[in-house]
């Protein structure tokens, strides 16, 4: 079945007429994703790469049956776009945009909770269920359908790990990017739980990094699941207190360190990869057992 993105996923691209929206719509179509609609106020009635463009999400949903939205929207307008999608009945929203104001993210997540909507991101590379569809901006070429679910806090590092897995002959069920911001929708623990319940997933790879306490909370979940979990955590040698590109990577107050994450995951029964190319090795040996 895969998680989040399935055969039933019908995608509307919000901001389809922008550079990024147009480019990644093409890439998603190439991958076989069902991109059924685009939204761009004032551009309704036109087409982008054969995809019909609507003025409102409401109309897109009504006419095309879209149920999943991906946002390529300038940060200040993401709140509006996400609210519009939720009110129009969209049930999964993937927010690619970076630099979304924190307070806007709070409002989005609160409304999503009230509406029963799954939000991925902001500042995520998206979600891919190889062989089915991708709703995101990850490269099309590195994934392969298979038994390993990946959940990652950062994009490029997860590409590296997926690449290593694929090269080792371990395909993926679903790969989820949580997003690099302080407030994001799906949490590490939630995705791990979903993957644990997913029939197609046999093993789970956690791609974490220092900062925050997501990995420590995920450990509490990992303790209770029956599938092997392999974790790689970046930032072992990162200097304390330096911003490593995004806010999630601030080490503060002794929490969220490399060691506290490794300890928590190890104690919960996860296998720890010290370098990225150890991930497939550990997963293979765990799946054989």
């Amino acid at each position: 079945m895969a998680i989040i993105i399935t055969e039933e996923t019908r995608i509307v691209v919000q901001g389809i007429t922008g550079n990024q929206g147009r480019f990644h719509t093409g890439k998603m179509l190439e991958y076989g994703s069902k991109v059924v609609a685009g939204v761009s106020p004032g551009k309704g009635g036109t087409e982008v790469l054969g995809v019909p463009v609507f003025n409102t999400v409401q109309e897109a949903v009504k006419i095309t049956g879209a149920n999943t939205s991906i946002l390529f929207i300038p940060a200040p307008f993401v709140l509006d776009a996400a609210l519009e999608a939720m009110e129009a009945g969209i049930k999964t929203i993937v927010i690619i945009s970076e630099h979304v104001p924190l307070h806007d993210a709070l409002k989005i997540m609160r409304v999503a909770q009230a509406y029963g909507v799954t939000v991925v991101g902001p500042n995520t590379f998206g979600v891919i269920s190889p062989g089915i569809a991708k709703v995101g901006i990850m490269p099309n070429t590195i994934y392969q359908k298979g038994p390993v679910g990946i959940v990652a806090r950062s994009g490029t590092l997860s590409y590296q790990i997926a690449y290593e897995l694929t090269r080792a002959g371990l395909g993926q069920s679903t790969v989820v990017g949580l997003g690099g911001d302080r407030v994001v929708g799906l949490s590490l623990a939630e995705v791990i739980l979903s993957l644990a319940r997913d029939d197609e997933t046999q093993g789970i790879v956690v791609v974490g990094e220092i900062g925050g306490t997501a990995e420590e909370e995920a450990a509490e979940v990992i303790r209770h699941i029956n599938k092997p979990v392999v974790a790689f955590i970046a930032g072992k040698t990162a200097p304390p207190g330096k911003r490593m590109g995004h806010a999630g990577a601030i080490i503060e107050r002794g929490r969220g360190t490399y060691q506290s994450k490794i300890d928590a995951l190890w104690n919960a029964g996860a296998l720890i990869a010290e370098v990225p190319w150890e991930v497939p090795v550990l997963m293979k040996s765990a799946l054989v057992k």
Partner: protein
Amino acid sequence: MKLFEYQVKKIMREFGILVPQGEVFFDLEQAKNHLEKVGEGVVKAQVLTGGRGKAGGVKIFSNPAEGFKLAEAILKMTIKGERVRAILIEEKIPIEQELYLSIFVDGRIKKPVIIASKAGGVDIEDVPEEEILKLPVDPLIGVRNYHGNIVAQKLGLSGDLGKQLTALLINLYRIFETYQAELVEINPLVISREKLIAADGKMTVDDDARFRWPGDLPFNEEKTPLEKRAEEIGVSFVELDGNIAVMANGAGITMATLDLIAYFGGRPKNFMDAGGGANAEQMAKALDLLISTNPRAILINIFGGITRCDEVAKAYLTVKQQREITVPVVIRLVGTNEDIGVKMLQEAGVESFSSLREAVIKAVELARVGGDN
């Protein structure tokens, strides 16, 4: 971005929160007259890092001459690597009790949380959990009177002080929303002559919401010339103390690259996160900047997603054409348009790696060859 105490207190005053009388001074001469006028008070170093009290950055004076001496000393201080940029000269207020109060964004529950404790004036991390109230706020509803009642109860405030607390909390939340803060903190919140007074104030505002801040907040965080240059280019840059310069795309992969360099015995000198989708021109400038820091070796680790490998190759070749590159550069290219990028490099006689492992080992080796340090 963090704000200085004097900025926070100015905002609090505007929003109706009581703060001690005080004035900020950026040089000693300006402070002199004021010290004469007030006679006694407190001199407080204005820095963005915590722990200035323990570092001697807060001192009481009881006459102008003493004040002048302290002000002079404090203005020259550097606290945890940060030079003191101003002093706040405040009245000294009688303190009956010290409390703690803050509002911050809790990413785990995705809500603002009010934190309150009777244990004020100390590091809140050192206060036992059971003495701390954590009260989530629904971001669609905000802080209302009943939140004040709950917090007042926990702080042991009743009657007029309870009412003051509620009003103060509502104002604090207004600041939190208006300035799109990640954190607003009053520690200590003091009871002084039956009034609640914010004796200190910390605030971190969300840079991504800069366009909503009322008025113009100055950029507070000091950057090195290299960091400033990187910011102009549009990449993030951090200086470390090793000898291998790193350029990668994305925070996670950048950290992992540093880890791998350490894993194979090397030492990163600085790193640059080119993030998602930097173009050839940006990357050429970024590379130029890295070269200018004179590392022993440069490791470029690109896993192309939005970033395209051909753009990376183009950037490298552009720089190579424009200037002599004496430092060895190891290039690892995988992902979007990998084939084109690799071919461009090959045609220019430049080797590239697809294996991250081999690339890192090579970079560490080259840095070692380059000298002892």
